């Protein structure tokens, strides 16, 4: 793994951890892997999308633009990490 990649993986660690924590509260007994498609695998249904958007906006203080409202950006823990990491993000406290 190159230095750059290792660096970016380290940067996404908090995003990953908080996203997994959030999902754990909503998916029931079995936790998806980071690459599992949350919707196709039936962990959550499409009504959960806006809960994910709100979570990402409040926890990571990112702006989700009209053009970002695509399932690709929210379909898995990986996808969410990649999406948030590509934005100007900052971790907010749980109360935010």
């Amino acid at each position, binding site marked *: 793994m190159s230095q750059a990649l290792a660096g970016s993986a380290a940067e996404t660690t908090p995003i990953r951890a908080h996203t997994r924590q959030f999902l754990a509260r909503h998916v029931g007994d079995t936790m998806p892997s980071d690459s599992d498609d949350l919707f196709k695998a039936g962990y959550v249904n499409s009504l959960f999308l*806006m809960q994910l958007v*709100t979570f990402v906006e409040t926890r990571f203080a990112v702006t989700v633009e009209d053009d970002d409202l695509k399932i690709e950006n929210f379909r898995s823990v990986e996808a969410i990490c990649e999406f948030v990491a590509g934005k100007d993000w900052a971790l907010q406290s749980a109360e935010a």
Partner: protein
Amino acid sequence: MRPSQAQDETACAQDTIDLRRFGVIGAGIMGCGVAQAIARAGSPVELIDLDDDRLQAAQRTLRSNIRQQKFFDRSAPPVDDQLALIRMTTCYDGLAEVDFVVENVTEEWDAKAGVYARLDAVCKPECVYAANTSAISITRIGAATKRRDRVVGMHFMNPVAMKPTVEVIRGHHTSARTLDAAAAFLKSIGKAGVVVEDMPGFVSNRVLMLTINEAVFLVQDGVAAAAEVDRIFRECFGHPMGPLETADLIGIDTILKSLERLYEAYWDTKFRPAPLLRKMVDAGLHGRKSGAGFHSYAS
């Protein structure tokens, strides 16, 4: 039983149905959904509720709904453009020029009857009223207006933006022309209607409310937890959602009110609401809209 065609509306001078201006009363789950569908189709709409607090909540719901719809409808206009078509107000004056009103207020007779009296005072004679109700007789609603032939039931499904078909209810005096207007309206927002006759609860909720109520009794009796009840419907029956998730989506308060309306209408104890439903309503567990019901929806 059916009134003759000759009784059809005569005050309605136009021959072609031309619906351009719309009003939506009640800015809760359903009113927001219907206003959103009208705005998505590019038409302006007046959205009315009781006070500014509720309208502010509706503004947040609408923004969230319209954003959610973007996921599935990539060609939808920008979120802000759609929102700009929805004029939120507590005042009925803007309804003077509307051609079609969809009423979506709380499932209580007095609330609905009060709205129709106000509508009659301001709407032009040819304006059609569509009542979005879970269980109240459309014939009874018609009788509370001065235009019973221009009243039709329109039971939208929730979430409105994602459901292509609407249960359309012909009240005893609903005219053929009113049904045509209802069909034209639905077509304009990209939906189809299935017309049924009028009995409280119609087709959908006479069955669905009993199913949900019995599922609530299962939880109350400790036969299974809500998650297991829903899982059986999803995984064994292949339903997209279980009955208790569906109850959370509809609103636990609305489920209780719908069962009460059915119970009053049929005087049949099969519609008696499970005591757990009332307890949940008293506890503020109203489902998705309150953040928790049988399941939790906190962000």
